[in-house]
């Protein structure tokens, strides 16, 4: 994607029928550190790679609890993600107050998408630079949705967003047919394996990732570091060998994002606000 004369305004169409500003916003999602989600019939797991500005700082919060039955993982401009999480929490609380019932996930996702669409059709606004993986449980079952800055949303069995997410997606594509009937622990294991794929050779430790669970009888919560480390050890997930093999195949698939990928593990190539 390169600069052209139709990309200054979000409200300017290109002759080919594209809105470049919206597409650039989706690029911002690809620059953020990875977030993955997967679901069975009864549980949904969200996971993300932790990114810290420097060794001295704490890592960015990328997974937010929205309600007991809904959580969200973000990739891209975390500030935008935070604001949207606040909106989601507000919507859930208001619905609960009026109806004493949890807000159906599908409806929250549509509201989010409609909110995003507005930003693609106003000259004084800009699209959100954040992709949202919304995980939620309601009467109709377990759901995982992806909300795009473009205002589109899709439901997934499993998905990954952010930098080096292609590696995770490849792993998930191989395994997703088993997810529907997986146990909760197997799902967490798959989530950790998918996260490891994005780490590109780095060791998977509980300090480099965050995992959250929501399921039948289990309100949304982020697993604490100890539990995650225990699960990593229990499954004997080793970063080195498989990580480098996946990296070789994956570099070829993402030529445009190569610069961002290299900037991912150290912070020189990445702007401070982009996580």
């Amino acid at each position, binding site marked *: 994607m390169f600069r052209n004369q139709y990309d200054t305004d979000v409200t300017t169409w290109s002759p080919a029928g594209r809105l470049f500003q919206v597409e650039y916003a989706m690029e911002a999602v690809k620059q953020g550190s990875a977030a993955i989600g997967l679901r069975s019939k009864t549980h949904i797991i969200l996971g993300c790679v932790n990114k810290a500005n420097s060794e001295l700082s704490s890592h960015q919060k990328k997974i937010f609890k929205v309600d007991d039955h809904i959580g969200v993982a973000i990739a891209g401009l975390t500030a935008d993600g935070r604001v949207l999480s606040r909106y989601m929490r507000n919507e859930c609380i208001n619905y609960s*107050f*009026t*109806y*004493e*019932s949890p807000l*159906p996930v*599908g*409806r929250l996702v*549509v509201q989010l998408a409609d909110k995003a669409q507005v930003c693609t059709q106003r000259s004084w606004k800009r699209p959100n630079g954040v992709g949202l993986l919304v995980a939620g449980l*309601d*009467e*109709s079952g377990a759901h995982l949705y992806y909300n795009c800055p473009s205002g589109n949303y899709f439901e997934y069995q499993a998905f990954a967003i952010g930098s080096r997410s292609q590696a995770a997606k490849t792993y998930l594509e191989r395994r997703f047919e088993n997810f529907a009937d997986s146990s909760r622990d197997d799902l967490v294991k798959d989530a950790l394996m998918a996260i490891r794929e994005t780490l590109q050779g780095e060791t998977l430790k509980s300090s480099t990732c965050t995992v959250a669970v929501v399921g039948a009888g289990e309100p949304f919560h982020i697993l604490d570091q100890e539990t995650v480390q225990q699960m990593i050890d229990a499954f004997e997930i080793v970063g080195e060998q498989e990580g480098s093999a996946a990296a070789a195949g994956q570099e070829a698939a993402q030529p445009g994002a190569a610069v961002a990928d290299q900037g991912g593990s150290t912070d020189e190539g990445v702007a401070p606000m982009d996580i």
Partner: protein
Amino acid sequence: MHALHLFIFTRRPRPSSSHVFCWKSDVSSSYGSTLRYKNVERMKPIGKHSLLGASGEISDFQEILRYLDELILYDNMWDDGNSLGPKEVHNYLTRVMYNRRNKFNPLWNSLVLGGVKNGQKYLGTVSMIGVNFEDNHVATGFGNHLARPILRQEWHENLSFEDGVRLLEKCMRVLLYRDRSAINKLQIAKITEEGMTISQPYSLKTYWEFSAFENPTQGAVGSW
């Protein structure tokens, strides 16, 4: 516009174990102390899962029906397989009634809301000041004083539908005898998971030749 309602849970004691509701109300509407309208339906289905019954000001009841109509319409417009069940409608109504009460402009009704959704049964009530609760049997107006004591004695988890109807008719008969704004023309509604039916109005057999009725003031000193 006084009116009486009785609503109870029953359960069919058959393998299907579907929850069945039994509701009764008379079809009268008064204008002050005049029993003016004798064919007013005070029970209405709401959405797919609930039934609303009201006593009090009928015009306010009609206003509430309009609010609920809009609520259900927007719910259906999502077109996503989710639907508002009796619990949600009950809480929505509680919010509406309480908010109006806070503005010193109440909707002058006592409402009863019940239904079945996904096998879960629900029965609740809201007053004009926003007092709300759920129970196995509820009533409005005089029903609270005359019928509920009977129900407390005789209601139990495993009432069959037929027994439930008989129990309600017993209560309604008492109300007929004792509430001057009641008429002998009532409807019964039946709600199950599959849907609901509201019967045509019918009357109960009454007996007015009790000796106590013939000379009511016999024992009262100073009366004629």
